[in-house]
């Protein structure tokens, strides 16, 4: 990104694409907040998230259903101010009658590096079975993604 922005959108994805990989490094501004994703602009309560987080030797899990987005950095793993975090999402929706399934892996430093690195994974189900994926939005909860944030979208056609 050459300018700060609150979201990154990949619109008008042809319906032939059914499998995706999204890779990114988020550079944060001074706002501590979430990074999530929405598909096809759907902000309804259609996203179920299952988290696995590892903080040193502590492993914990949490399931949150009926959310308005899929989680990347969320809750216990918000990106703190002026910190960066990297992620990779594998996403598939093969046909309209199926739910979309995403596997999310993230790397980030907690509390501006004064605490050590944590790992968080999510499995996300998008329960909207109406449409194939035509849009992917990566969204900052508040504030902006800073300059030099980079997000790569790759897709495989059916």
């Amino acid at each position: 990104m050459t300018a700060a922005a609150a979201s990154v959108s990949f619109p008008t994805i042809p319906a032939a694409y059914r499998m995706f990989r999204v890779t990114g490094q988020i550079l944060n501004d001074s706002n501590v907040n979430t990074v999530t994703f929405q598909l096809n602009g759907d902000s309804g309560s259609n996203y179920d998230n299952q988290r696995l987080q590892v903080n040193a030797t502590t492993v914990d899990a949490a399931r949150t259903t009926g959310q308005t987005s899929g989680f990347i950095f969320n809750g216990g793993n918000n990106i703190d101010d002026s910190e960066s975090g990297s992620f990779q999402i594998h996403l598939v929706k093969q046909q309209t009658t199926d739910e979309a399934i995403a596997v999310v892996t993230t790397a980030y430093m907690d509390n501006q590096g004064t605490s050590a690195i944590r790992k968080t994974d999510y499995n996300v189900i998008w329960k909207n079975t109406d449409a194939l994926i035509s849009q992917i939005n990566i969204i900052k909860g508040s504030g902006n993604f800073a300059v030099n944030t980079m997000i790569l979208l790759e897709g495989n056609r059916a």
Partner: protein
Amino acid sequence: MSLIGVPEHIATTVLSGTAGSIRFDFPASYRILMCDVYIANDANDKDVTVTLNNDTGSNYDYQDVSVDAGSVSGARVTGAAGWLITTHEDFDASQDYYAAFCVAKSTSGIDAQLVHQISYRGVGDEIVYESLIGQWSNTANLITRLDITASSNNFAAASAASLWGVRL
């Protein structure tokens, strides 16, 4: 021709004989690196470490999670000399190993980060899941070199690695 934002195949190395490491050198314009690693089996146990820019200083942190049958465990290492992608235990003799990972560093002056997407190996009749993320706190330079090193014993012939990169 430079392909901005398009993954490009940088190189693939397939070992014709034993070797202690697999090394890739590439331009600094690559800011996202994707690597697939296959380690062929031989009679020796070995650990596998990833380093950037030949930096073997205490600049690598990583957080691991592994699942071995019904046991889930985590491990955090800070100030290491590389990312040990076989943190759970070393790669056992006579077993194959596969790993896929991604390293991102969008600009100089920030940390590079590792997302170790998938890693598993058979230990006897068992299969172990391991996943790891990491941070390289050497902020001065963009990445121009990546080494995959066997910290004990050599990689066997037919071990292979492919590296892909995305330019900005």
